[in-house]
């Protein structure tokens, strides 16, 4: 197993290198550059030319890539053109806010959708099954921006239970548990929006996987030998049904860090989603590279984790 993991980790290096070349080329091939976005009667063509020279934007893509990769190998992710700050610093200031929100939504989503999925499967075609299928489908079809505004109207403006936006109270200096409470209070509405939208996927997965398992012979055998239904479902069926779900968990690792552009924007949650979009619009190459390389790495890592946990939970699978 250790050997397998080491091999997979080593394999990541050439893959990441290939990804970096691809995305670097794609961003650079898009028309315009960070300087062409500076259209301002006070910025002359000479100033733009000077900035381009300073930032090496005049040189061929391959040379620019060389600058970037050499710095990257030394652990220097470059400087964002837009923020005039090291890329790592920019990412760091937004990444964790996104992570907290996504993680909370992920946990809440799992806690809700797995039991619902199991119940839907065991009571297939019952009222319960239909009701939750409909709810989940509404969740996945409802545009998050509309749902978010609706929640703000109901809970923040009319009922005044939750704040309109933000992550903490304005000017707050809270720390420790007080800060945690404040953040949770602000997180409530965006959390509902994100979770509601993601419920359907995991729930339907659990449901179909469960349905498949309870039709297996060994479940019939378990019932035949007189085991109680609860034991049959939760001990024998559920454990096997959850194996494919584990893969989905692994795959969602990059999603925890990529931020939710629309939800974060509506609630002014200081996450990385809107920052990424802005980086695309302003052609902030190094920041884009930083964010995308991080996500690429997390995707590969997520796959690896999924594979490894698969082997752990499913004895039929052997990793070599």
């Amino acid at each position, binding site marked *: 197993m250790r050997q397998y993991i080491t091999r997979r980790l080593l394999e990541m290096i050439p893959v990441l290198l290939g990804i970096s070349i691809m995305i670097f080329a794609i961003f650079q091939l898009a*028309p315009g*550059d960070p300087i062409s976005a500076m*259209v301002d009667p006070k910025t002359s063509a000479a100033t733009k030319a000077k900035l381009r020279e300073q930032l090496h934007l005049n040189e061929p893509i391959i040379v620019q890539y060389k600058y970037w990769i050499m710095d990257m190998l030394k652990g220097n992710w470059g400087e964002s053109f837009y923020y005039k700050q090291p890329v790592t610093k920019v990412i760091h200031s937004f990444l964790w806010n996104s992570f907290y929100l996504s993680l909370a939504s992920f946990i809440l989503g799992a806690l809700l959708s797995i039991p619902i999925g199991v119940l839907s499967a065991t009571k297939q075609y019952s009222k319960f099954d239909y009701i939750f299928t409909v709810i989940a489908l509404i969740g996945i079809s409802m545009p998050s921006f509309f749902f978010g505004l609706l929640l703000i109207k109901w809970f923040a403006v009319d009922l005044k239970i939750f704040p309109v936006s933000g992550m903490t109270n304005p000017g707050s200096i809270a720390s420790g548990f007080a800060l945690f409470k404040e953040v949770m209070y602000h997180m409530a509405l965006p959390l509902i929006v994100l979770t509601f939208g993601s419920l359907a996927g995991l729930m339907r997965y659990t449901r179909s996987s469960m349905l498949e398992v309870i039709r297996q012979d060994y479940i019939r055998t378990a019932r035949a030998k007189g085991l109680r239904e609860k034991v049959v479902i939760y001990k024998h069926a559920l454990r096997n049904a959850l194996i494919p779900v584990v893969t989905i968990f692994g795959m969602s690792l990059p999603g925890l860090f990529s931020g939710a552009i629309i939800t974060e924007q509506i609630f*002014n949650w*200081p996450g990385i989603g809107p920052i990424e979009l802005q980086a695309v619009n302003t052609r902030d190459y190094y920041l884009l590279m930083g964010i995308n390389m991080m996500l690429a790495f997390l995707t590969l890592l997520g796959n690896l984790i999924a594979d490894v946990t698969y082997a752990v939970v499913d004895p039929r699978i052997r990793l070599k």
Partner: protein
Amino acid sequence: MKKFLSLFLGILILVSTASSCAKKVSNQVSNDNTSLNKSQLEVIKATNPEKLPQISKDRKDTLIVGTTAPNGTFNPIYSSSLYDSWVVSLIFDGLITNDAQGNPLPNVAEKWDISQDGKTYTFYIKKGIKFHDGKELTAEDVAFTFTAICDPSYDGPRTDAVMYLEGYEEYNKDKKNTVKEVKGIKVIDPYTIQFTLKEAQAPAIWNFGYGIMPKHYYAFEKGNIKKLKDLFLKPMGAGAYTLKNYKPGAEVVFEKNPNYWKGEPKIKTVVMKVTNANTVVQELTSGNVDIDGVGKPEMVEMIKNAGFFNIYSYPSNSYSYIGLNLRDERFSDKRVRQALMYGLDRKGFISAYYKGNAQVCNSPVSPVSWAYTDEINKYEYNIERANKLLDEAGWVKKEDGFRYKDGKKFTIHWMTYTGSKFVESLVAILKDNWRKLGIEVVPELMEFGTLVEKVYDKREFEMYNMAWSVGIDPDSSGIFSKAQNVPGGNNSVGWINEESEKLMNQGLVEFNKEKRKEIYKQWLKLANEELPYLFLAYTKDNVAVSCRVKGVNPSPYIDWTYDIHKVEIVDVK
């Protein structure tokens, strides 16, 4: 649209720092408002102050101002967004500031002299101004601030403020590190500094408004500006507030500087809280935010109904336009441009789209500017006139309803940007209007950054539309001069007109305001006649200010940060 303006068109950093000598201004601010006419400022007073929510009443020592997220470049020589410039203007004070009419006012500099030839500016710094750490602000700090912009490693947006200084090239291009100072920046004594320009330029005074940085705090070795950049989030100036806390994407918190040289600020804490256009009405009406900009007319209506806001509406210093590539022989004919202008129902479009939140634009200067003139052609919608002009220009209408010249159909490919309601509405109206003239318009939508490259860097277009944010000075040579008719330059349409060139140059070197006004009047008439652009609209800014806040009187050249030390929170009964 608003977003595009702020993001890409680089809202000019108007010199909008705090104000001048305290005594002089106290009357001035209130007078300022009344001295503006109705087309320059409209104020809707709060009708129902008692409706102010409890949550705002309880917030006695904190002012909360809504903002778009700043970038965290909290430095006077690096800030590039309007929102960063707000932060900078609370923390830093510059040599000069401006009044509501857009005239320069003394600030850190008590007074200044401009030499007879217009090339030498001498500023006399007020004694006893202290930075936040208690050290005195002197001419050395001013010299340091402007020398930093000249530094070879400087990569910010202010180069154009110093490139006309004597000795800039020598200092900036110096690879061997032998040139120790910029010749044109001279410290005469601790309270006197002199700048010498290579050529006289009347608008140059505005280059000296940027906040002064303390040398002892920001000093760096020539060629190594990184040290200064590392201090973006620990800014120190001589302004009314200090930075207390910055949460990227969420808020900026300021605490008052009790030793502020113009007097102790009245509000202890100021918070710039990030809001967005989708929820700004909710933030304001629920009492979470005291001041914020409100875009759409429907939203203004909602704020008005809330009853506890004073709403200030005034033209933003910008105009939108359609650019035609004048290198294209169809458009180099003035009659065609005029026909297109007459044949477009701009008034109809503006009232349909902006619902009173904008006015028709006919010349490239803001209606707020002292140089603005009304004595120009209004190009009212007139199809007959347009058709006649096109006939004269040799475009003949054939039986299919389209116009032809030399066997070629009049078809315009219009490059424009995606994701904008403004564009969507304009496309519909323009296509229909010009179809009636016999002109086919084919819109090509693309992402904004792509459009910018095609228009400015490659100059491969027939027609496009964008907007300009214009500065406090009416000089437009940064947009329309011959020198800008280069790839990457701002004169992307390629307007070359000797008369215009002459007038713009005269305007640049004339220091007498009345005479300048006369020059710009002529120039605006010329631009209105020649139509380098098809001018569209002047949009309005609407700023809602809670009735509990006293002393914030925004107008075109005055932000909420102006005279912030005098702003106070009052009890509302």
